């Protein structure tokens, strides 16, 4: 399909009487990485929550494949993978149980690939260990393994590399590279520089704020 995947026009958001951004507009094409930059508290997470449809506290227009996002909500949810601030992993369940429930939420995912995905993030052998006895990094990895299962074209990742070791970060960057090569798009926030990805475009929120 021609045209941008996701288009944002004239986005305005205010929080606790403080303007986060105003007149924000950008588009995300297939095969593109968009990195949201900004200081702490500049509204990166808020922007990602708005884009994913979790937060409705905004003014402006968001279009998904040319259609207003509220009208194609179902289609959008099917094509979105959102990795939020909280990993969405239940501490009392094992990694495998966590992922199986996620597969039930997203019917297009193949539940038989769960074991494979856990192996990819280095959690082979931890399938039956409740997540509360895993380390912080492993906890994040459980959630990140969703990236290996996903066939969604748009990934929205909020600080995906927090608490992940160097090798893990390299593996995730390679994964993002493969996703881009397949024609997917990524919107992410991170305080690290992405290595080896030439198509990164940044949007800086610091210049937007009304300081």
């Amino acid at each position: 399909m021609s045209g941008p995947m996701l288009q944002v026009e004239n986005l305005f958001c205010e929080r606790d009487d403080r303007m986060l951004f105003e007149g924000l507009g950008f588009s995300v094409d297939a095969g593109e990485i968009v990195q949201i930059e900004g200081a702490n508290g500049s509204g990166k997470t808020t922007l990602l929550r708005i884009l994913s449809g979790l937060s409705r506290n905004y003014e402006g227009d968001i279009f998904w494949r040319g259609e207003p996002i509220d009208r194609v909500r179902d289609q959008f949810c099917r094509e979105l993978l959102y990795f939020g601030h909280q990993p969405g992993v239940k501490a009392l369940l094992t990694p495998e149980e966590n992922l199986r429930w996620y597969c039930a939420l997203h019917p297009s995912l193949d539940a038989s690939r769960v074991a494979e995905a856990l192996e990819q993030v280095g959690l082979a052998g931890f399938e039956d260990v409740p997540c509360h006895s895993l380390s912080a990094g492993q906890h994040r990895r459980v959630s990140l393994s969703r990236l290996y299962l996903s066939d969604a074209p748009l990934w929205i990742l909020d600080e995906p590399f927090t608490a992940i070791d160097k090798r893990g970060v390299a593996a995730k960057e390679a994964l993002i590279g493969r996703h881009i090569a397949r024609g997917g798009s990524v919107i992410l926030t991170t305080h690290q520089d992405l290595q080896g990805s030439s198509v990164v475009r940044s949007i800086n929120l610091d210049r937007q704020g009304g300081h």
Partner: protein
Amino acid sequence: MADLITQAASERAQIGPGGLFVATLRRDLMLSLRRKSELVNPLIFFLMVITLFPLGVSPEPGFLAQLAPGALWVAALLATLLSMDSLFRTDFDDGSLEQLLLSPQPLFIVVLAKVLAHWMLSGLALTLVAPVIAVMLFLPAEGMPGLMLSLLIGTPTLSLVGAIGAALTVGLKRGGVLISLLVLPLYIPVLIFGTSAVQAAVTGLPLGGYLALLGALLALGLALAPLAIGAALRISVSG
């Protein structure tokens, strides 16, 4: 119950709303069974209130028997209400709720499964222990069927309505008190018809009418509450 869950777990997760319903029900039951202290909370509360009644009011059998229908129903209602706050709390804290709202599957299904799981471990459990506890209040044997039937049909409505309050307050740090304020007025019809059913059963009057009214409330709750819960969850997460 553990057998039931392992058996279900061995089955392949099916795709589609039905599969999601089963998966969510199984997940929530599993979570509750691994957190045993919270699991028995409503039951212990129920037992404590009923134990204290004879001590605080009067140990005389005739008087207690008169008091029993109302006391049992009030204790069951409060026990359900107390357990309500935790329904969406952990999902909200660890981000599962966000994933749930971003699912392309109908929210109705997940919400209904979560409420059913909650009811099985609160309302249904209360219904099953109620006859044993009712004996402590000298409830006549004729009242037992009325007690169990009215609790069986009435407590699901309590869980459904309570879940609306839980969904509205899940974004707040301390929503417990607010839930009670929001939900208690809506609990009153259930309490009235529930107690009346037990009293009718004790005195030998037909209780079909009361049970039909409780059933009507349940049907209304089943149809409308999941929509309200879903909308309330979206508001809470959006904030």
